[in-house]
């Protein structure tokens, strides 16, 4: 198992795609900050509405005490940018691509044969792949969070940055990392089931973007029974995670839902890998 892990981490280290993915995510953070700055400039009348395709609706910034629209950056702060990155699918989509590439290329390149044919148990092989996938997800999300925080200084100014409620930021990032582990296991399951790069990425991104619509529909269906399936679907929690006032109920539910979905995805993945032939 240690040998397998050593090989997996070596592969992870050698994957240029991973580094590119992280850079793209960092660039997205930069773009998001840039967009917020542009919105502020448009609101303040410094540049014309519609410049570079950025259109601000008249009520985009609430009027402050002085009567001038409040700065969007001031309004949402660092944690708002984090929420955009994690809850707005930016991180999820890139993570889906990275995890799919890392998992599925073993099948598409046939390298999985080199391990299975050497007598390693399928369970050990799958687990050895899952651990670096989790690490990848956690490191990736941490880097995004770190870049978001660091870029907050030049974009918001030190005063606003220092006024951030850091306890909330830490809890929010912690929750997102926990959700991320469960989501990574789901992406890995999708990769194992499809074993095809295009299909794996498509299904993962599809699940990310449309499963919450499905659970919203289910909420409506089960409305009379007062059951809300969306409360128990990890991707809904990613999007619906609050940035302040974390209730104990939400925290406990988050831990349980993440753990259950992680275990379901991991168990199904192992089961499928054990029972199907390797091409």
């Amino acid at each position, binding site marked *: 198992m240690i040998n397998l892990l050593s090989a997996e981490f070596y592969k992870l280290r050698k994957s240029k795609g991973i580094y590119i993915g992280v850079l793209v995510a960092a660039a997205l953070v930069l773009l998001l900050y840039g967009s917020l700055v542009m919105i502020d400039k448009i609101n303040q009348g410094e540049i014309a509405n519609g410049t570079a395709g950025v259109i601000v609706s008249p009520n985009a910034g609430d009027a402050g005490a002085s009567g001038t629209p409040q700065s969007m950056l001031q309004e949402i702060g660092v944690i708002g940018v984090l929420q955009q990155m994690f809850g707005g699918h930016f991180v999820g989509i890139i993570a889906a691509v990275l995890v799919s590439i890392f998992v599925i290329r073993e099948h598409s390149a046939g390298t999985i*044969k080199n391990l299975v044919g050497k007598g390693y148990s399928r369970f050990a092989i799958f687990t050895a792949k899952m651990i670096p996938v989790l690490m990848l997800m956690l490191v990736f999300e941490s880097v995004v969070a770190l870049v978001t925080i660091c870029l907050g200084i030049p974009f918001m100014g030190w005063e606003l940055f220092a006024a951030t409620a850091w306890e909330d930021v830490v809890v929010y990032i912690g929750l997102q990392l926990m959700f991320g582990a469960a989501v990574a296991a789901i992406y890995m399951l999708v990769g194992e089931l499809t074993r095809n790069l295009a299909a794996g990425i498509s299904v993962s991104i599809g699940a990310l973007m449309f499963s919450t619509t499905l659970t919203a529909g289910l909420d409506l269906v089960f409305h009379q029974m007062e059951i809300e399936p969306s409360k128990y679907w990890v991707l809904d929690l990613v999007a619906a995670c609050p940035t302040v006032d974390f209730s104990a109920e939400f925290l406990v539910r988050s831990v349980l839902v993440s753990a259950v979905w992680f275990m379901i995805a991991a168990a199904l993945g192992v089961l499928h890998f054990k029972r199907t032939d*390797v091409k």
Partner: protein
Amino acid sequence: MDYALNTDGITKIYGKHTVVDHVSMHVKKGDIYGFIGKNGAGKTTFMRIVAGLAAPAAGSMELFGSGDLEMQRQRIGTLIEQPGLYGTMTARDNLEVVRRSLGIARKQTVDEMLEFVGLSQTGKKKVKNFSLGMKQRLGIAIALFRSPDFLILDEPINGLDPEGIKEVRDLLSKLNREKQITILISSHILGELSKIATSYGIIKEGVLIEEFAAEDLESRCRRCVKLVVDDAQRASAILEEKCHITEFDVPEEGVIRVFDGLDNSWIMNRELVENGIHLKESYLAGQDLEGYFMDLLGGASND
């Protein structure tokens, strides 16, 4: 008898199609076992089952006399279908992954293996830019890691140039001779296979139709005089009495194959005619190895 591989009734079914049909194969330790069959005959599927890549629908197998396959597979090196390689990595990185996954402490093993398969000069060239032959060599290097006792090679000389084919052939012979590595090898290049194989198994439509030693193959392909006559029984008696020939057989009605006295075939012909036998045809026949396999496999091209 010590077997590296001993299977009993291995069967694989995809949907309604039986791809491998009750194959009972016996690969003796130290053998180079040539596994021959047309495309789609079930060779690769059978090898994948032995390597643990596919599960059989029925049957059992032993590796090195043990049913603990997971443990025994650690003694196997495989190259089945395309070599499993990371295209965006170098040859060295690919072998480094294998070294780590097998827990081999000596880092120099990677360089030695690259040298061994003639890829030490590839430097930073990505595997995706390798020729088919280079990829095949790298695949062989991966199969040879951790000095396996049993090599399973599916078409290992595919894509190699004549020089490369000879190198692989010499390498396999050397491994077999010096390290007593047992080899199960399939190849379409039967001429090459016949140069190294010590035993053969022939699979047709999923069924292992024959297993035999290389020496048997030579006798099966012996040169002979083929006589086509109207009465094989009487002609046989004449050959024995008048020509004192004892080595012959009657493979089918009206056909006699004579294996001795080939230089004096004219005497046979004369005696048969003089004794009233209607001799329709008389010719020197003999098969090369490829011809023999073609006959067994049904005459079609073995592509």
